């Protein structure tokens, strides 16, 4: 027994008696990674993250992405004259004869009814609000008045501790924000009320569209109806045009940008696979007739790959201007290098037997390549091209933002203007959907073409 275990111990000494230095080494690596992470954490400024983050600002933007607001504007000089506009736009004012149902006009006052049943009444000389804030504050009747030309809250001094927390009184302005969905600003000259509502309004048809007044079932009937709203074109066509030319959501522009981005990815990858495959034959040591050709093509692949698509896109941007060519060529150039390298390695690793078998039947050189090599590298080729196609959908979005156009640029532009965060949300959802669909499509195609072979490597 002893003898066996001694032999056993000697045989597997590397497993049973692990040397102390080996332990030490793994601890050393762990220590290295942890200490680097701590260093990077501080050097990148993660400890100052809380100083930079403005929760109010973020909450406002997030709210903007899923809600819309109506502005109710009036002046102290004449409070009977009220304008209501969608998102405060100059071209999106409601017709006074056709005000929304939450706005009630009486002989001596106007009332704005909010979703939480709170009401703001606008009188000739004062504004009253009731039913906002928490349970206790809901019974509070707040009155805003001009006192010596300055806006004040009646019954409260300038910085009264009894005032609800959501009221801020400054020299020239009283700002009331009970929750994210209601806002009242009283200035010495004008009054502005923001009434927020959940949802993406005017998503299908914009503010000025004639289709707005119809309900969805009426729209469905109109779509097939032969009573033309516009005598020139059919209702379906008219509806489609109105949808694409939506002034609030820019569907036409968004869809054409998406199409551009998809084209960039598809065509760039197609070019890359075609050229990559052809050049790979020249770069494979067992195919190419001349060694120096192989050397040059290899270096060519390396330089295409090494000059990143970022730099390619900068060069092409100068030559071709913003547009599809820049994106297509940047993707095609970079991926010709990568796919060519992978394919030439795959060709070098093939089994010789099949090629020799084909040769023994008296096949020509081209036939040998076609029937001896191509079938062997096809799974690698298909899976790699599809992986690259997948990742190029993302690259095309990025290239777009670098200046090539497409949805990336549109996204960057709309976030930089910062006004309409709902458009940003809409676009990012579309990008997600497109990327997801492309992924699913390429996975489906891969499974169809080569079965469930595990060929896993991505860019």
């Amino acid at each position, binding site marked *: 027994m002893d003898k066996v275990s001694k032999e056993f111990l000697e045989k597997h000494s590397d497993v049973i008696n692990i040397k102390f230095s080996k332990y030490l080494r793994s601890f050393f690596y762990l220590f290295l990674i942890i200490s680097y992470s701590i260093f990077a954490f501080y*050097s990148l400024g993660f400890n100052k993250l809380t100083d930079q983050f403005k929760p109010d600002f973020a909450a406002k933007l997030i709210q903007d992405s899923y809600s819309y607001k109506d502005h109710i504007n009036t002046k102290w000089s004449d409070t009977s004259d009220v304008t209501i506009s969608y998102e405060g736009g100059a071209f999106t004012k409601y017709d006074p004869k056709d005000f929304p149902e939450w706005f009630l006009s009486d002989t001596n006052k106007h009332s704005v009814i909010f979703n939480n049943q709170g009401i703001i009444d606008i009188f000739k000389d004062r504004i009253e609000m009731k039913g906002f804030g928490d349970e206790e504050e809901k019974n509070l009747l707040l009155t805003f008045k001009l006192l010596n030309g300055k806006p004040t809250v009646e019954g409260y001094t300038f910085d009264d501790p009894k005032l609800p927390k959501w009221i801020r009184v400054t020299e020239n302005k009283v700002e009331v924000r009970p929750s994210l969905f209601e806002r009242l600003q009283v200035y010495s000259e004008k009054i502005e009320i923001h009434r927020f509502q959940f949802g993406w309004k005017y998503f299908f048809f914009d503010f000025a569209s004639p289709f707005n007044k119809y309900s969805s079932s009426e729209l469905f009937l109109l779509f097939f109806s032969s009573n033309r709203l516009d005598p020139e074109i059919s209702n379906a066509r008219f509806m489609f045009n109105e949808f694409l030319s939506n002034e609030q959501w820019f569907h036409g522009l968004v869809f054409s940008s998406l199409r551009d981005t998809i084209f960039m990815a598809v065509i760039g990858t197609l070019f890359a696979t075609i050229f990559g495959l052809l050049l790979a034959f020249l770069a494979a040591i067992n195919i190419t007739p001349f060694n120096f050709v192989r050397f040059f093509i290899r270096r060519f692949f390396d330089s295409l790959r090494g000059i990143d698509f970022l730099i390619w896109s900068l060069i092409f941007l*100068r*030559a071709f201007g913003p547009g599809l060519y820049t994106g297509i060529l940047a993707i095609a150039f970079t991926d010709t290098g990568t796919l060519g390298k992978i394919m030439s390695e795959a060709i070098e690793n093939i089994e010789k037997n099949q090629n020799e078998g084909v040769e023994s039947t008296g096949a020509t050189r081209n036939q040998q390549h076609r029937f001896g090599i191509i079938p062997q590298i096809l799974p*690698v080729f298909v899976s790699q091209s599809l992986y690259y196609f997948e990742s190029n959908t993302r690259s095309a979005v990025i290239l777009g933002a670098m200046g090539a156009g497409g949805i990336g640029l549109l996204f960057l532009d709309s976030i930089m203007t910062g006004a309409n965060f709902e458009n940003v949300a809409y676009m990012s959802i579309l990008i997600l959907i497109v990327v997801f669909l492309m992924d699913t499509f390429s996975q489906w195609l891969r499974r169809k073409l080569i079965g469930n072979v595990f060929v*896993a490597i991505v860019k």
Partner: protein
Amino acid sequence: MNNKELPNHLKYLEDNLNKMARTRMLYSVISIAAIILILSTGTYVAEESNAGSFVRGIDNFFDYPIALFAKTFDAGFSWFGYVLDYVPDLLYTFNMALFSTIVGAILALILSVFASGNLIKNKTIVWTARRIMDICRAFPELVLAITLLYLLGRSPIPAVIAIIIHTAGALGKLFSEAIENADNKQIEGLESVGSSWLSRIRFGVLPQVMPILLSYGLLRAEINVRASTILGFVGAGGIGEQLNTLIQWNFGAKITAVMFLLILTITLLDYFSTFTRQKLIGGSFIIPKDK
């Protein structure tokens, strides 16, 4: 030989062969036609929507590189000084990439364990973990980074967070594929001696997949250096931001200096990761299922 003289079963075989050949032919013709169609419509759309035409673009193709090189040549030996000037920015970008790769890889490892059907028997958990990874992966880093940059202000943090999220998704998928392809015998052996779930992972799975995971991680680090350079362009700082400014001001010699640094880094990283991968998993970095 006439068909009629063939025995029945051979005739049947030949008919089937011809039929298969025809179907194959049809598929090839359809796919080639589809590719030609896509290419032609694509180039048509490109020609329509591009700012300049293709032919004019080809004429101008070498203008910019030549202008850059001319300016570089004018700069003479001071160009090497420019190269050194931008090394700190490069390190800054590299720091971003490395840190986000480490954190992303750790998150990916945790996610991938829960997304592997051979380690977790509960299908709901596996499904949820996979969908989480899909969502993380689907967002291009840039979209996330721009949004976070807008919320958090100009600093490297939004870029790092964006890269971490994307890395966690992308690496997580590869990790879980590698783990699911690991040999089950070790796990079963450990299970038979009554080891716990954690030690099954530690001694049964990790030794098998560690080289693959490390090589994926290295590859990802390389990708993330490129990504953090690009994110510099939209305000994350580092060498990308410098390059953006230089291009806007058209400082030819400095542009080539930064480009040189970038290409050098990317090429070096490429060689380093290929070399290390070869040491780790030997030669081919395409891993067939049965190995």
